[in-house]
């Protein structure tokens, strides 16, 4: 009995020794080759709690050296289970805004419905609109890595905020860390916050005297960054999430002020969306009238849908017509700035980076549409001119009558309804 116990303990010690030796093996070389990484790890809570290289990276040296191994959120979650669970419930985990963040790259999650219909329309292999991977798919491999996945890898990894080898929570809590991705023309939350009273107060007083991103979006250190966002794709009902956010605001503001402020932002979002929809309607009409130049059939195919017209979240910003380009800016930059500026208490972003260019975009679209239609009408009049000698026989006679009718319409001598009605009567007269 005693011999057996001794044997088990000895075996365990040998095993531990072997694993420890493996970690030492990594350090033997990496202390020289990547001292920054090793130093950063040595300062971390991981090092002081004996979490070594192989605990996270595994023991497959070849896979690690070829960059094929990746420390996913699941690996972190094997110790930080609550953080992972909260992360999985948030938009960070299911944002699916790029191919790099596509769910096919993600491990299964009990919290999310990982069925085919999460990404694909039920009847087809087409992606649903909130899987906005088209822009990603249109990029070079390098741009996918640098410009897309650097942010969207947050869906499957923790290092976007926590760095790869450090455990300094102060780093993860910095607004600049969020601002790696939440900045710029598509959603300038960092700039909005900085230019708001919240950001100015923070510049003066620092934490905890003024709110930063995590104050409102990671309450009590929760990794569910989507709590309190009433218009998001995750979380509870809109009213529950709104009450949650009002509760946060009410720590410093009156509840009435908080509700009105958020309600104003809701209304600004609705108003901005209405402007955007009007713009979308104009572009769709131009497409139906075959007035987009280049036309979808004449340009390099869309990465998902090929040579078809795509508008909305799946549209790309490459090889498109001027009207589509105006709409793209309205959708991706101006609309986002208008309502996110309002939610982040940034008057200038809400108005001058959002509302004003959004309305200017709509004016530009209307003007562009009018110009395109005028040009088209002129082109049709030119096309409608008789070519050479008139055709003889009944077909030629009918064509001449149709030509005269169309020219009269194109000159503006009759309305569309009058033209349609006269054309129909003429066709029927000819038994057609």
């Amino acid at each position, binding site marked *: 009995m005693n011999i057996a116990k001794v044997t088990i303990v000895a075996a365990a010690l040998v095993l531990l020794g072997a694993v420890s030796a493996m970690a030492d093996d990594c350090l033997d070389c990496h202390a020289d080759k990547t001292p920054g990484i090793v130093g950063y790890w040595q300062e971390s809570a991981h090092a002081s709690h004996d979490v070594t290289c192989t605990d996270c990276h595994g023991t497959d040296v070849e896979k690690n050296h070829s960059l094929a191994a990746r420390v996913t959120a699941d690996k972190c979650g094997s110790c930080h289970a609550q953080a992972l669970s909260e992360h999985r419930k948030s938009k960070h985990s299911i944002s699916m805004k790029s191919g790099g963040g596509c769910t096919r790259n993600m491990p299964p999650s009990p919290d999310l419905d990982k*069925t*085919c*219909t999460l990404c*694909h*329309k*039920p*009847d*087809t*292999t087409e992606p649903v609109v909130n899987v906005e991977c088209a822009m990603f798919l249109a990029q070079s491999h390098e741009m996918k890595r640098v410009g897309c996945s650097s942010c969207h890898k947050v869906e499957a990894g923790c290092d976007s905020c926590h760095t790869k080898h450090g455990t300094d929570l102060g780093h993860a809590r910095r607004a600049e860390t969020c601002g790696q991705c939440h900045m710029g023309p598509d959603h300038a939350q960092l700039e909005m916050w900085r230019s708001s009273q919240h950001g100015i107060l923070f510049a003066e007083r620092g934490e905890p005297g003024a709110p930063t991103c995590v104050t409102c979006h990671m309450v009590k250190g929760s990794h569910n960054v989507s709590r309190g966002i009433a218009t998001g794709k995750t979380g509870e009902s809109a009213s529950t999430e709104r009450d949650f956010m009002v509760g946060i605001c009410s720590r410093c503001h009156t509840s009435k002020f908080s509700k009105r402020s958020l309600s104003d932002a809701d209304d600004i979002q609705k108003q901005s969306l209405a402007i955007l929809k009007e713009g979308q309607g104009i572009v769709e009409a131009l497409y139906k009238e075959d007035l987009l130049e280049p036309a979808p059939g004449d340009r390099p195919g869309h990465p998902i849908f090929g040579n078809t017209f795509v508008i909305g979240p799946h549209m790309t910003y490459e090889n498109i017509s001027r009207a589509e380009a105006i709409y793209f800016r309205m959708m991706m930059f101006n609309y986002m700035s208008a309502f996110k500026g309002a939610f982040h208490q940034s008057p200038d972003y809400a108005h001058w980076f959002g509302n004003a260019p959004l309305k200017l975009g709509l004016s530009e679209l209307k003007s562009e549409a009018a110009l395109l239609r005028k040009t088209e009408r002129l082109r*049709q009049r030119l*096309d*409608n001119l008789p070519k050479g000698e008139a055709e003889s026989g009944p*077909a030629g006679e*009918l*064509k001449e009558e*149709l*030509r005269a009718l*169309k020219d009269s319409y194109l000159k503006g001598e009759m309305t569309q309804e009058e033209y349609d009605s006269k054309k129909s009567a003429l*066709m029927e007269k*000819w*038994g*057609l």
Partner: protein
Amino acid sequence: MSRRIPRNVLPLAFAIMLVCLLLPANAMSAQKPPAKYEPVKIASGVKGTPGTVAWSADGSRIAYIARKAHIYDISGKHRSSLKISDPYFLNWSGENQLLVLHGGGQFAIVNTVTGESRDIEMPEGAVGVYPAWDDNLIVLTEWSKEISIGVDVHHGLYLLDLESGSLKDVYVASRIIPRRYSGSEYLRGWLSEGPAPASGEALLLDFIVPPNAPPYVKAITVDPFTGRTEEILPHYREDRFGAWGGWSVLGRKAAIVDDKGHLRVLSLSGAISKVDDAISGSYPAYDPRGDRIYFGGYLIDEDGINRTAILPEEPESAAFFSPDGNSLAIAAGGKLWLLHGIEPPKHTVQISMDEIREKLILLRDLYSGGFLTADEYHKRLYAIIERQAEGK
């Protein structure tokens, strides 16, 4: 010493004898159509599925595939063979011209008088070639490949310009049939008779198996001239259909078969009607004179009220009406029979296809000249066909 036959065995022995006597007669009737129509066997070893037997436009000859491609001259009662290897589809184009798909997707246009042929390159998976306007042919394609989750099925409609030999894709689409549904019957999609008479539109019966939702049939028509597609059945979940079928006289209805082998009539307005569920079969064909369908060995009125047994023991038989509808070539059990004097259906449709064609040419001319939009073209075309159907 004789052994007595037990009394209770006698009725059994009598029954067996009776069965033995009746069996050959049944077997005969299973292969040979009723004497009423004086059937003539014109070939053996025929495949007999749609696309392998075709009447010439004047009804004087039948082209068929029986290992090789053959032409049977009805008045002279003689046959000639074409030197084309492994044919799998044939169709007439003009008086003395056959369109033949053969081998692994090769295509030949054969002069039936001189025997000369011209080979033209085809897109992948060509299943049918049909004459169109001017110097164009319509090519329908269906091909599939195995992938990890099932079968990736592709359908295409192309226009082949005979003068230049160039191909223009009018419609191409693909769908994935998950592994649990894979079966050849779902891989086909184009109605086997090819483009509709009058309008020239092709009908695609797509079987869609979406993830996490019940499968359904989506039927669309594709116009090779304008390229316009129209959804006939957007989401039909009650049944699924094979693509073997035929067009009604005016091409506004198609006879198709559900997966239980029952005949259905699909109107291009989107309505589906039953005909006679007592009859099962595989290859329906409309009588070119009116609302009657050969199916499962019977001639059945479209309303299901009257039916005439032609070859009831051969539900898998396929019939091919002569252009005037008076004669019928029936492929059954590997044999090809010819029947003359087929009585006209109860409801005949009196039409002038020449008048429709004349107006269709004018409509196409107006559409090409920019005087009509695609929608206007189709609206007017359907109205012309409807007026013909109503005898106006």
